[in-house]
């Protein structure tokens, strides 16, 4: 069965690699690019928040930090516009991690509910900071070295780099899931205090998980900045980003591996398509908010879990029959 799963993954990757070569229209390549960016972010977000249950609604902090790192370094190092700037992408991720450490250290000392609120608060600090400090260009943002690759295949290199990011974070996420570290995160989700009583170093696990998830989101932000060529604080530090990433993970299935990928695929591609079709920004807000509500209220577990439950129901019924045979063990008031 393990072989079959791997085959599906390979197929998916192959399809994505082939995509820009088959579909020549740069519009679709750009949609593909943004979709991949969000797939990476959602998976990275899920790696911490989904596994541990600590819903972080300030991940735009990492995205924006990555973006500004890319912008500031490329500007001040007087870099020539072009592929060399791709090297700054991992740097963006690293800087995001540096930010995540103190951020996590403060935010993770409190209980879950307060944690969410703090992530939002820190997010606003960053947004305000970026809008007001002069070195970040204030509200007019920053303009990066202008890359002239021609509009017909401008998005293609970005597409492939984003694909690499997605493959990277998916592999890391899968590895975490299989590891002892991942087990500890899941234990924290179910009963943090119990986990503590079983020797799990809860605080350090949480901080490490949080910081780790910042890396890829930071890289995604840096990549975005490079692609856009011009960044504004309200777009890279965007509250809608925070919620979108969470929503994608929820939609697909919190805590699963394929969930965030699926969620991002569905949401981002449709959102991109809608933004292009309906230029009215407010309508998009209404649609987005409504979709959000529908998902949360009617499918809180997400698509992947829903499907999986249906399939395992049969297996459960078989096992239940086995349970009633053993008298001594099945004692108890329940």
């Amino acid at each position, binding site marked *: 069965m393990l072989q079959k799963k791997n085959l599906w993954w390979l197929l998916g990757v192959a399809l994505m690699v082939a995509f820009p070569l088959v579909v020549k229209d740069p519009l679709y390549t750009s949609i593909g690019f943004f979709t991949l960016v969000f797939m990476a972010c959602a998976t990275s977000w899920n790696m911490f928040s989904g596994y541990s249950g600590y819903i972080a609604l300030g991940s735009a902090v990492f995205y924006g930090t990555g973006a500004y790192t890319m912008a500031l370094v490329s500007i001040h190092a007087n870099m020539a516009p072009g592929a060399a700037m791709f090297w700054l992408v991992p740097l963006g991720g690293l800087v995001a991690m540096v930010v995540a450490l103190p951020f996590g250290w403060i935010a993770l000392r409190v209980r879950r509910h307060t944690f969410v609120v703090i992530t939002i608060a820190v997010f606003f600090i960053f947004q305000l900071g970026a809008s007001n400090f002069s070195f970040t260009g204030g509200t007019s943002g920053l303009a990066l070295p202008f890359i002239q690759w021609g509009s017909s295949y401008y998005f293609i290199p970005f597409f492939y780099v984003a694909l690499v990011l997605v493959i990277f974070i998916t592999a890391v996420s899968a590895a975490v899931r299989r590891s002892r570290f*991942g087990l500890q995160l899941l*234990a924290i989700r179910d*009963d943090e205090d*119990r986990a503590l009583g079983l020797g799990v170093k809860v605080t350090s696990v949480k901080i490490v998980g949080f910081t780790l998830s910042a890396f890829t989101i930071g890289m995604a932000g840096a990549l975005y900045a490079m692609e856009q060529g011009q960044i504004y604080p309200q777009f890279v530090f965007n509250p809608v980003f925070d919620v979108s990433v969470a929503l994608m993970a929820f939609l697909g299935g919190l805590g699963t591996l394929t969930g965030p990928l699926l969620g991002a695929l569905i949401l981002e591609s449709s959102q991109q398509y809608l933004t292009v079709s309906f230029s009215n920004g407010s309508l998009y807000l209404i649609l987005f908010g409504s979709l959000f509500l529908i998902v949360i209220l009617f499918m809180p577990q997400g698509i992947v879990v829903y499907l999986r439950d249906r399939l395992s129901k049969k297996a459960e019924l078989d096992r239940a029959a086995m349970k009633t045979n053993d008298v001594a063990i099945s004692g108890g008031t*329940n």
Partner: protein
Amino acid sequence: MTVLLSAQNISRSFGGLKALNNCNLEVEKGSITGLIGPNGSGKTTLFNVMTGYVRPDSGTVTFDGTEITGEEPDKVFARGIGRTFQLTRIFGRMTVLENMLVATQHDEGWLRSMTRSKSSTVDVDNAMEWLEFVGIARLATLQAGSLSYGQRKLLELAYVLVANPDVILLDEPAGGVNLTLINQIADKIRTLNAQGKTFLIVEHNMEFVMNLCHSVTVMNQGSNLVSGKPAEVRTNPLVLDAYLGGDDEEVEEVVNG
């Protein structure tokens, strides 16, 4: 006759309520010690203090000669002190086997724990052995949340044992469970005790306590009242007094066993 785990003059108040009042407790190495007392006497609070979940206002907790007062629960566990909870706490969304693997102790940093697979053969074998011991090995792949109450109690016992602790604190292991299972649990405790493990057990089931424990401490209103062999404690007038303030049934049990 060495004392392995002890609490000295523990006091703890919650708001206006003094839950523990200069409480003392000694647990001999290799013994099965019982901790009994009417409801509200502070037994679970004492457990919480001894395992680091609650900080005492004053007093000390000592383990094997070292003071461990106020240490975090994960450190207490790493020292070899395991405990179960009155209302079973398991990781509902993980499988039974995964529950066991959480407790497997490895002295490693986070980096190592990320690269190490959660189901390394050694760990799985160890976990399965303990699951066999308590009798729920065949439930290993089920989601822990689907277990019955009795099965959960066994799981809680098992995953505390996985790390091979020296002392095990059990909070009402026989609560809400049928007779057959109670006897099974008592047997398991005796077997483990014969292998050298020390037990401290809070219980209301008098028969269970009297038949199993080497020595018993009675608590009342946050303080320790009497300690001694079960037979002595049972007939002590102070103990009867403490219980007379409470349930008649409990008094019956204490007197008649």
